[in-house]
């Protein structure tokens, strides 16, 4: 006589170390095998889109820091670009270069955290993270030098930057960029052919190319599935058309490819910063002449960038007043977790944790 079995539900989160914040997964299990997973979000919802309707365009910059708090600079950049597009503001040359430098260093920092905590989820408790943290610390020092902050920089302004960089910044940045490739080699030595990483991540959580496009995935998740799509190349914003870099793409769309794509992107970001440091003008204005209260003409604009986690966009509707009529934030990670269901089916609970970790989520951005 067959034994009667039925699937049961396991609740992971919202308070759980492997959910990277307050994320809840309602997992349907058949023994140890995942049958279905339902993400439950909203625990960090602060209503930023609603709050933004009552504040001026400049005041809203501080909210963007609090979206993806591991890459505040790129959030600032995307928002400022959307407002500049709406109001027709031209950013000075030196500010554009500094913006690119900060955005790319931010990408390095964000990917270091993504890879570090991915390995943490995999069971390599804290050791790889500490290596990554060592370099991230240097990046945070650089950001602290220019903005006085270590997490929520609030450094970019509409039309440029809040202030010029101090004199000691450029030598420090050059030193960091010169040292960084050696550290990336070190990570590769430790991880790229690590047997445990290969066994746990290769072939796990495959996201096929067609599904990745259908669900609208972006960033490393899309590129790991073999789609050559990077907004910096496909729609060069700011001054990205002046730099020479490549788009690394994965072959299989598994967890290992997502890890690998991030490591390669760190190398490409270093290349971009090296070129930007050579080309940047030594002096010049760092902010356009922008009035205290910006009143963009009636209309709408969509500014979007390739943030570390994917396509980050701001859709702004203006009614001609000092506050946006509507501010919509298009967050990459919310869209990327649509794929979670497809990726985890048939895998074990332990794999669910690393598949989720490989997407690289930040809940501030998902819940807004």
């Amino acid at each position: 006589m067959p034994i009667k079995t039925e699937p049961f539900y396991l609740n992971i989160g919202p308070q759980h170390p492997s959910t990277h914040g307050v994320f809840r997964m309602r997992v349907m299990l058949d023994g140890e095998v995942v049958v279905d997973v339902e993400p439950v979000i909203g625990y960090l919802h602060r209503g930023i889109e609603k709050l933004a309707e009552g504040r001026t365009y400049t005041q809203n910059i501080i909210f963007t820091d609090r979206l993806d708090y591991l890459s505040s600079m790129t959030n600032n950049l995307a928002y400022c670009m959307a407002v500049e597009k709406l109001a027709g503001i031209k950013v000075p040359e030196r500010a554009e270069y500094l913006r690119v430098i900060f955005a790319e260093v931010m990408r390095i920092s964000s990917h270091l955290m993504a890879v570090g905590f991915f390995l943490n989820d995999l069971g390599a408790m804290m050791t790889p993270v500490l290596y990554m943290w060592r370099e991230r610390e240097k990046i945070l020092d650089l950001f602290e030098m220019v903005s006085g902050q270590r997490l929520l920089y609030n450094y970019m302004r509409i039309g440029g930057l809040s202030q010029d960089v101090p004199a000691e910044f450029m030598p420090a940045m050059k030193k960091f960029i010169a040292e960084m490739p050696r550290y990336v080699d070190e990570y590769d030595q430790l991880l790229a052919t690590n047997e445990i990483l290969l066994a746990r991540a290769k072939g796990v959580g495959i996201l096929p190319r067609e599904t990745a496009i259908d669900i609208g995935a972006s960033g490393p998740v899309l590129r790991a599935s073999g789609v050559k799509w990077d907004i910096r190349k496909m729609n060069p914003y700011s001054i990205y058309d002046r730099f020479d870099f490549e788009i690394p793409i994965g072959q299989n769309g598994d967890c290992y490819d997502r890890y690998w794509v991030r490591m390669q992107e760190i190398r490409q970001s270093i290349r971009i910063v090296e070129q930007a440091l050579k080309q940047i003008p030594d002096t010049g204005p760092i902010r356009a002449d922008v009035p205290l209260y910006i009143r963009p003409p009636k209309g709408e604009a969509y500014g979007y960038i390739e943030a570390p986690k994917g396509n980050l966009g701001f859709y702004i509707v203006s009614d001609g007043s000092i506050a946006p009529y509507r501010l919509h934030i298009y967050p990459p990670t919310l869209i990327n977790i649509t794929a979670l269901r497809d990726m985890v089916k048939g895998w074990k609970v332990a794999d669910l944790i690393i598949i989720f970790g490989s997407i690289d989520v930040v809940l501030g951005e998902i819940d807004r």
Partner: protein
Amino acid sequence: MTVAINETEIEKKLNEIFPGSVISSEKGSILVDKGSLLKVAEYLKNAPELAFDYLTFVTAVDYLDYFELVYRIVSLKYNHSLIVKTRCSDRENPTAPSLTPVWRAAYYQEREIYDLFGIRFEGHPELKRLLLWEGFKGHPLRRDYL
């Protein structure tokens, strides 16, 4: 460069295939009649010369007289983009056809719009609140919500 596709050409083309489907067009965007939105979306995705396979954002704007739904679609093959808009004027019980069967990227975003604007998407596989909890009164992103 992602090129915004010529809106007057596409308006003409769509009106030939689905008469009365496109109401008007402005720079880079077309305003589609709500009733033919699903047909137009399927055509835009499957027509080989357009191949809009990638939906980026979906959002709604409350203009008090009507809600405007905004969809931005991109073709990864041709690297061109188009903004599709549609309007629903009923404030008490606004509805719109769901585009999740066409592009799954709309899945969470339509749930979010339902949550924050109260627009019901017909044909959505699992329409329930996303960010706020079940039982929350009202839809906060409406302009008349305090």
